[in-house]
C-alpha cells in the first residue's frame, strides 16, 4: 500500500516524497509547525529535503498563534 498517515488521515505516498510535498498537498501553509516523521523531529531547514518513507506516520502539529 502506497499510503502514509498525516495527522491520522491517509495520504497517497509517492517515491521521493518530501516533507514539503506533504505540506503542499495538505495546504498546510501555517508557518509555526512541529513536524515528526515516525516520531523523528524534522527541522524546518530540512523540509525540502527530508524524504518520507512509505507507510510513515507524519505528524504536523500546528502551534496556536491567532486567538
Amino acid at each position, binding site marked *: 500500500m502506497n499510503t502514509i498517515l498525516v495527522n491520522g488521515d491517509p495520504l497517497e505516498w509517492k517515491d521521493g516524497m518530501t516533507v514539503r510535498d506533504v505540506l503542499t498537498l495538505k495546504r498546510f501553509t*501555517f508557518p509555526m509547525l512541529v513536524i515528526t516523521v515516525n516520531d523523528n523531529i524534522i527541522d524546518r531547514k530540512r523540509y525540502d529535503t527530508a524524504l518520507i518513507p512509505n507507510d510513515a506516520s507524519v505528524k504536523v502539529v500546528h502551534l496556536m498563534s491567532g486567538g
Partner: protein
Amino acid sequence: MSSHTTETDYPKFQRCEVDFTQRTEYLDGLEAMKAAHKVLKEWTFKPSLPQQGYTNRTLYLNVGTLEVKEKAVTQQMKDMFIGGRGFGMWYLWNAITPKTKWNDPENEIIITPGPISGITQYPGSGKSLVVALSPETEIPIDSNVGGYFGPLLKFSGYDSLEIQGKAEQDLIVFIDGQKGLLRIEEAPAEPLDSHVLAEILTRMYAENDADRVNISVVSSGAAAEHSLIGMLNFSWFDKRRGCIRLKQAGRGGIGTIFRNKKIKALVIRGPEVKGDMNHPVDQETIAKTGIKLHQELRSNDPVQCLMRRNGTAHIIEIMDAYDLLPTHNFQYGSHPEVHKIASYVWDQRCTQRTTDGCWYGCSMACAKGADGVVLQTGPYKGHRVTVDGPEYENAAGLGSNCGVFDPEFLLELNFYCDTYGICTITYGTLCAFVMECYQRGILNKERTGGLEMTWGNALDDLAMMHQMAQGEGFGKIAGLGVKRMKALFIANGWGDAALINDIGMENKGLEYSQYMSKESLAQQGGYALTNKGPQHDEAWLIFMDMVNKQLPTFEDKAEALYYFPLWRTWFGLYGWCKLPWNDVAPSDNAKTAEPTKIPEHVQNYLDIVSAMTGKKITSEDMLRQSARVYNFQRIFNIRMGKGLRLHDHAPYRSQGPVTKEEYESRIERYEKELRDQVGVDPTTMSLEEKMAATRKYRIDRYEKLVDAVYTRRGWTLDGVPTQARIQELGLDIFPELVEIVKAHGG
C-alpha cells in the same frame, strides 16, 4: 478547501510610500474648547510608584456625586484576585446587586492594569483590563486593552480606577500623576469621535511637546451613544507619526456605559516612563528574560509569523487556506477573493518604518497603521487619516464575513468603527447577520429603510454605520446587536424563527468573534463555554482539535477547555499581552514535551512574576490563581441570573451546516461523518434526512462535550461550581458565593 490564491496571483500594491506624518489636523478651536471647560471638582493626591508591582491603593470616582476617594488594596485582594481582571470582578461584585441593570448609576467601569503591567523589558507587558456589567450580555464583561492609560495610572499611584455614578453633563476626568491632581471638568465643546477627541485632548493636557508621550486618553464615540456595542479607545502618542494611536477595549458594550455615564474622556498625565518603575524584587531576571525574547523575535519572527511586519493580519490567508475564515456570516470558511485583503496587501499598505508597539519595549510591535487613507464617506469624507490596523479580526469580521474584499473600504470601515467607538468584531458579526437576513428575505429594502444590505456592499454597510452614529434609521436597530435583532425580527414575523435563531451568531448576547468553529467541536466549546461570551481569548483550539487531531476524545477536549481558559485568564490577571506567548516560538520548541504550550515562554512569565513580587510561583500556582477568578466570575454570572447550562447553548451555525448550500459545500466531510460516526448510509437518504441526522449528531456531541467540560472544571451538570470546588480554591471565605452555589445545587 478554497481555491486559495497567493501573493503571486495578485497585482501588487505599490509599497506604501505615503508621508506618515501628514494627516488632517483637528486643532482649530482648541483654545475655545478649553475655555468652555468648567471645573466641577479638584482633588489632590500624593503620586507614588508601585513597589513589587503594586501601588497598594486604588482610585474610586463617582461621576454623579463627584465623590473621589482612595481605597486600600488588601492582602486578601492580592491573594484571591491578583490584579487586572480579578480586581475588576471583585470591585464590580461589591458595587452592584443582582438587580442592577447596565444603565443604573451603580454599574461601574473598572480599568485595572495588573502587577506586571508597565514593565518595559519584556514584550507585551502593558495591558489593562476593563470590567463592567455589559449592556449586551447583562453579566460581567472583561476586555483586554493596550495603550498607555493603565500603566500610567499605576505610575501615578493607583492599581485600579473604579468609576461609578452618572453625570448630567459631558465630563472629562483629568488625572495628573505628575502633580498629584485630579480634576473633573464639564466639557461641552469637544466632539465625541475618538480620532479627533484624543488628538485634541493630548495637546490640551500636555504641558509641552515632549510631554505628549505622557498623556493617554480613554474615549469612545458617537455610535457608542446610540448602540449597545460601544467600545473604549485607549490612546498613546506616536512620536514618529506625530499623532495619537488607538487600541480598543472592544467587547461587550463598555463604551455604551461610558457614554451613558456622560463621560466624554478620561485623560491621564503620567510621569516620564523609565524601566524600573514597578520596583521589582529582581530587576536583573526581568531584564535577562526580556533580552532572550527580543533576540528570539529578531531571529525567528521573520521565518515564523511576521508579526513585526503584518501584525495579526498574518493569518488572514492562512485561515482561508484551512477553511476557517468566516465568510458570509460564518456560512463558509474561505473565499476566492481573499487575496485582495491578505497579509501581503497590508504589508504594503501599512507603514513599515515606524515602531508599532502599544506599550514601551514591545519588540513584537504588531500595532500596525495605514497612513494617508483618504475617506470616501461620512462626516469625515475627504479627510486624510491614519487607521490603526487592520488586525485579523477586523479584516475577517468587516471583510470576508460581510463579503467586503476592497482593502480601501475595509480600512474605512475599520476607521469609522474606531472613531465612532464601536467594536469591530461585534459590528462585523452583526452586519454579516443583517446581510444574510437580507439574502434570505428576512430583511428587504423596505425594512432596512432603503439600505441594500447585499454581500460586499461596502457603501451601504458604511451608511448603516453612519446611521448608528446618528442614532437613526436601521443603523439604530442594528446597534442593538444580534440577540435583540433576532427577537425583533421574529416578533415582527419577518421570517422563520428557527432559521433566524440558527444563523444569528451570538451566545449569552455577545456576538461571535471571527473564527469558524463549525468543524471543531473543541472550539464550539471554546466559544460557548466561556464566562463572558464567545470571544476567542479563552481557548483557541481549532488547530489542536481540527487540524492536528490532538484532542480525539471528549476528555481530551475537556482537558484543553480546562487548561487554556485558565492559562488565558492568567494573562488578564497580571496585565500581559497574549501575542508574544505564541505568535513566536523558540527555535528548540519542537523538542519540548508540549510544544503547543510553548513551555519556555510559560517559564518566562513565571520567572518574571516571581522576580516582580518576590514570591516564587509555579505553573500549578498559576492555574490555581486563575481558577479562583474564573470560578468567581462564573458564580457572578449565576448571581446575575445567568451562568447556567442553558446560557451555554450555541447557535447551530457555530456547530454545523444550517442550509443546503452549506451542507453541499462540505458534502464529503458530512457524509463521511454520517458513515463513520453516525453509522448510517447517506446514499439511501434525502438531503433533508442527511442534514437532520448531521444536526442531531452534532448537537448530541456538543451536549456530551458540555458534560465532560463541566465535570473537568468541577461544576455540576447544570454548570454550577460545586461546593467542593470552591472550598478547594479557598473561595468559601466569601459566604455569599457559598449561598449562591448551594441555592443552585452546586
